[in-house]
């Protein structure tokens, strides 16, 4: 493969061995993060987006296990690496930030200690140099009075500042890939905008590729170059971001977009996709979404649709396109 892609996941399958049976949290997922691009994974809670990220980091905990597939990072398969080699990659070449800035920092160490630690693990530097780099990264992520703030404990900082600390910690080794798992979900909207802008700025300055996991279509529209929509462990639709928003073709994605409250429309009730995410232990034999899909037909319950290309670079996992389906409904009416 070419160096143009930082990350290429091929047919990844991550399974949880539970007492009631095996549960595929990530099922035959393939995705590509081109160098310097921001790629989004969207979906509801439990669709497998976080597990995809944890699989890349190889931090899937028991009873979970990566069963098959390839995770090519700069051309090398991470699944072939030894635990020791993976440890060197984590935090250095691939780093990660999480949803909960309030609890993702260790309460008993200063943030300075924790940020410097991330650097110390991977690079042999003097104390002064570690400190200098920590101040530098704090300034880069927009933490005022960096010198002073390094001495703070996590509980002394606000949620927004803590997420900046997390980003600083993740970026201090200048990784090739940053995985951001719902980085702004726990923050209020003004802080969200700042954090997203910061991530974009760091991407532009360092050329870091970003895998952004979110359930927020607004964040996707603002940030991403490419989008993967996941449902029940599978990719349902994937496209370049403008193509997806202009020409959404999977009923599930259409439902997600419809669920966004709009300031220019007056409605009594906000739209929701009916039903809940199915239990992964009792998935229908066919399309995972069929139990909630308003267009579902007999075939959808029996046969799993393949991902198929409907426009250049635009794939959907559905027998029909949204256009055809909504057209059909209108003709019925």
């Amino acid at each position, binding site marked *: 493969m070419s160096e143009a892609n930082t990350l290429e996941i091929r047919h990844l399958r991550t399974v949880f061995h539970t007492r009631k049976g095996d549960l595929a949290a990530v099922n035959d997922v393939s995705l590509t993060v081109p160098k310097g691009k921001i790629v989004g994974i969207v979906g509801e809670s439990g669709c497998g987006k976080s597990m995809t990220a944890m699989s890349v980091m190889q*931090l899937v905990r028991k009873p979970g296990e990566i069963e098959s597939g390839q995770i090519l990072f700069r051309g090398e398969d991470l699944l072939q690496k030894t635990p020791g080699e993976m440890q060197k990659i984590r935090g250095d070449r691939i780093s990660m930030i999480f949803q909960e800035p309030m609890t*993702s920092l260790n309460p008993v160490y200063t943030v300075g200690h924790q940020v410097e630690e991330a650097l110390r693990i991977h690079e042999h530097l003097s104390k002064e140099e570690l400190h200098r780099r920590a101040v530098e990264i704090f300034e880069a992520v927009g933490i005022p009075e960096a010198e002073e703030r390094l001495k703070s404990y996590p509980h002394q900082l606000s949620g927004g500042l803590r997420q900046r600390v997390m980003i600083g910690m993740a970026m201090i080794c200048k990784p090739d890939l940053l995985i951001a798992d719902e980085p702004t979900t726990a923050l209020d909207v003004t802080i969200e905008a700042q954090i997203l802008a910061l991530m974009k700025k760091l991407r532009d300055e360092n050329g870091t590729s970003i895998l952004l996991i979110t359930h927020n279509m607004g964040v996707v529209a603002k940030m991403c170059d490419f989008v993967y929509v996941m449902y029940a462990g599978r990719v349902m639709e994937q496209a370049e971001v403008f193509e997806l928003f202009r020409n959404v073709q999977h009923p599930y994605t259409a439902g997600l977009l419809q669920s966004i409250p709009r300031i220019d429309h007056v409605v009594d009730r906000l739209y929701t996709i009916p039903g809940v995410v199915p239990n992964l232990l009792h998935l229908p034999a066919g399309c995972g979404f069929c139990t909630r899909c308003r267009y579902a037909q007999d075939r959808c319950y029996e046969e799993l649709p393949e991902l198929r290309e409907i426009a250049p670079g635009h794939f959907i996992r559905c027998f029909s396109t949204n256009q055809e389906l909504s057209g059909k409904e209108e003709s019925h009416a």
Partner: protein
Amino acid sequence: MAKKIINRVLVSIPVLIGVIFIIYVMLNIIPGNPIEVMMAEHARQDVIDRISAYYGLDKPVWEQFLIYMKNLLHGDLGVSYKLNRSVNSLIADAFPYTLKLAIAAAIVSWLIGIPAGILSAIHENTIVDRLFMGFSLLGVSMPVFWAALIFQYIFAYRLAWVPVSGADTWQSYILPAIVLGWSSAGTIARLTRSNLLEVLEEDYIRTAWAKGLSQAGVILHHAFKNALLPVITMMAIQVASLLSGAVITETVFAIPGIGRLAVDAITNRDMPLLQGTVIFTTILIIAGNLIADILYSVIDPRIREK
């Protein structure tokens, strides 16, 4: 910080007074004149009366209590009826033995308990976990006197590695320290294990893994310090109770410590001595809790600021 400590010490004073009062009342509702008990049946009544008067036992109980409290304020725990020596000096003589035993037992208990807890947590639900937990369960469950006798039989009598009893050489402390330490190690191990397992679920542990730390780094640096808080309280209280005398262990191994002193005081109805040892114990326990609180705030910055 200093203000907090002073506050805590001041709060302890009413607790101490309350405890002293309860002890005094309880020991004085035991029927019988201690002097009569000591002198057995051959003593003449006028001798008993004279000695009772000498110790102030002819006065009403409430007056005795006030006199006792007044002496206590001057740090005077009274005079032992049986040994006719000041309780202060008896405790001062016995304490070094108890102190040596307590330190040795605490070291044994931490050296076994903490590593066993960590290893059990890392290897949760495996054979290693079961082995360590079984071992510590055994320590908690075995009656100390029974373990002491078995150990004496095997290591002192059969193998003759260490003295059977006494407190003359440091070797004499090995067996009692192991017996005492093992029993408290079990509690420490279980507490360390359960706290560590809880902490390992925290988000910041995931962050530590994502940074590229080794397993040792994650567990010893990030998880252990957080898991240690409740363990420290337990350790401080254990040390305090070890210092107040391991009654059974000291008796079985014939160590002339605080525990032995208390047992002798009970057998002899030696109220001042018994009160003295109990008050001494109370002070140690209160001090142990205070030290645990201070250590808490040293480790956790969130507690420090409250």
